[in-house]
């Protein structure tokens, strides 16, 4: 049993603390100037009518009230974003895990396949958008050219209200290289002894995968789910480049709407309120996932 003895604060410890603070002061200054101040400023601006070019006008909670009671587009934006998160994150996760499992098997040219699956992560978003624009193009796209040659109606991937979001999710599934690497590391950490024990107990391959491999990988799954969820709530680049929020606001996501308010309408106060709402939503989802993790995440170090 450890006993805790309070150490007396003396001049030496003060000096030590000051030295420590002096050494990390560049970081502290940077953190205060570029993180703390913007956070505090955006909290204040969210309570104002502010267009950057004129002085902010304090309006209390009016921005928030308007967002929740009057702004119809906000509801559309919220529903589009939740759709993307609820379907996109699990879809990306499943694809990444399955691909990582495949890449974890002994096979020829394994490093080559691993590189190929990671490549989409390295492709700049603008280049990705152009490639996918061509893939999805209804007139000369690689898929629809075939469809047309068979005498069938083309598939309006990103120009249909129903298909636009799933088509963007498909692109998201293509860019799972980072998650694949994380899962691959987790899969390589699965103890062989556990698999062997399960085999001795008569478990088939699927049962071993379900009851041994996946539980051991749940910490990695939790991490990928959390980071994927946060990234998906902030989804912007491909949506902006490929659909600009259309057709008919089918892909108007949270970050797009925030950007539009800030830089097209010069409504920085309203955009700040949107940013804080997004923060709270992400926080709630994160807490929910964390709380649920006690039921499904297995940490080998815990008894």
């Amino acid at each position, binding site marked *: 049993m450890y006993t805790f003895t309070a150490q007396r604060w003396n001049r030496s410890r003060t000096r030590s603390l000051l030295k420590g603070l002096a050494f990390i002061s560049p970081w502290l200054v940077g953190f205060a100037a570029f993180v703390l101040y913007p956070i505090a400023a955006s909290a204040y601006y969210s309570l104002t009518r502010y*267009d950057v*070019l004129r002085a902010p006008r304090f309006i209390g909670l009016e921005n928030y009230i308007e967002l929740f009671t009057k702004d119809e587009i906000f509801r559309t934006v919220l529903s589009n974003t939740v759709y993307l998160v609820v379907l996109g994150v699990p879809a990306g996760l499943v694809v990444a895990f399955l691909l990582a499992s495949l890449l974890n098997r002994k096979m020829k040219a394994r490093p080559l396949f691993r590189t190929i699956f990671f490549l989409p992560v390295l492709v700049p978003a603008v280049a990705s958008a152009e490639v996918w624009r061509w893939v999805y193009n*209804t007139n000369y796209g690689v898929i629809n050219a075939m469809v047309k040659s068979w005498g069938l109606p083309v598939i309006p991937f990103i120009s*249909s209200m129903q298909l636009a979001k799933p088509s963007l999710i498909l692109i998201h599934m293509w860019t799972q290289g980072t998650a694949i690497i994380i899962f691959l590391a987790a899969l390589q950490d699965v103890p062989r002894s556990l698999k062997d024990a399960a085999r001795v107990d008569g478990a088939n391959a699927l049962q071993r995968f379900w009851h041994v491999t996946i539980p051991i990988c749940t910490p990695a799954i939790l991490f990928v789910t959390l980071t994927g969820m946060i990234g998906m709530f902030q989804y912007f680049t491909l949506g902006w480049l490929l659909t600009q929020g*259309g057709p008919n606001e089918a892909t108007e996501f949270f970050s797009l709407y925030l950007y539009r308010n800030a830089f*097209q*309408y*010069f409504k920085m106060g309203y955009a700040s309120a949107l940013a804080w709402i997004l923060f709270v939503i992400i926080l709630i989802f994160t807490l929910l996932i964390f709380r649920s993790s006690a039921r499904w995440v297995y940490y080998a170090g815990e008894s």
Partner: protein
Amino acid sequence: MKTMDGNVNTTTNLSRRRFLQWSAVGMGGAALAAACATPAAPAASEDAAAPAEETVEIAWWHAWGGTTGMAAMVGVAEAFNAEGRSVQVERLHVPEMNDKLLAAIAGGTPPDVGVCCVQYAQLYSRGAVMPLDDFIDRSEIIQHDAFVDGLIESMQWQGSTYGVPGFEAGPRYGLMYNKALVEEAGLDASQLPRTWEEMFEWHVELTRFDDAGNVEVVGFDPRDATAGNGPATNIPQFWALTYGLDIWDAETNTFNYDDERFISALTTLKRFTDHVGVQQMESFRSSFSGWTQSPSSSFPSGVQAMLVTGYYAPGELSHSAPDKEFGVGWAPVAEARKGATFQSVGGHPMYIPNGVENVDAAFEFIEFCTQDKAQNVIFENTGWLGGLKEIYDPDLPKYQKYSGLDWFLRSVNDATELWACPVIPIQGFVNQERSRTYEAVIFGDKEPEQAAQDMQEACTEEMRKQFPELLG
């Protein structure tokens, strides 16, 4: 450390504590010195003779890029710098300029001169750019009345002028058509449609589908090019004007979107879309993109027969579709206005943000850009005009270079109506609402009456929030 006898002493008595103290003193002193320092002056010895005239360097931001646009910008900067003036310009291509300019102005580091593609009216109305009337009054090169009617007015807010037309300004509306497609459809190009009823008949004749029902050629896309744009200080809102409606009342700072004519315009817009099918039209638009600059756009690539567009299209088409022939005539109007011919001259202003120090130098560059030397560089590379009345002579030899350009130039004088572009202080919001309203109607989410009413309410409410003082 070197001792008096010249030997190197490798020991030191500097403790960590002392080191930190001296470091703190040194950093504090440096910071103090930096804070008190005057702006860096040109390094020159006192003995050296001062130059006859100090060279001032100004920063110029432009959003236009692309092959032709960039060539024009580079050419203008080089032409200016080659003049041997005491002002030199440093050019910077700034895509997505709206965001960056806003941040630069707010941060106190704006460029000396800007041109293109920001929410101009929003900058004017919020005092973010400088009034230029005093400079224009003093100028021997630029005069208020030197520009085409209505153009300088589109760069004014509450009586002050915030921009000067320089790089791109001109007539915004002409109905261009693909001669081969019109001929194939058996239509008479000498009798172009003058009303939307007649236009719809052409649209039906020209639109073609394949056996699977996929659209192959669209007669007319009512949301392409200038037909689908505005309202902004450089392009009005076409669908309102064609019905004879000015959507913005500058006297009262109010909107007229709930007017019957706007509802009729929305109904017509939907009718054209419905003939193709909203899904087909949307796919077509996303496949080919629009306007005339790119060879892969629908009109240059020959899969769209008619287009409402501006004077720059002949020049752009000569590059993007050199193998095709195009004609041009008046844009159609509502049945009730049959016989009316309308035009609007809009343009991108050159402006000087507030907070700029080299204002005279910045204005000197603006003056240069409005004149022949710069204008010729711009025209040669892009086919763009600058808005001066004196260059609107359709018979000038250089204008014969692009087929149809002379029609646009003549149209300014021939039109029965010449509309000015509206200066709406919440331009970005209204523009997005326009796009939203069109989509809500063509996708069938709202009836035109409801959509018009909603747009009127949304824009009025936004105006009340952002400029309550203007609504009385």
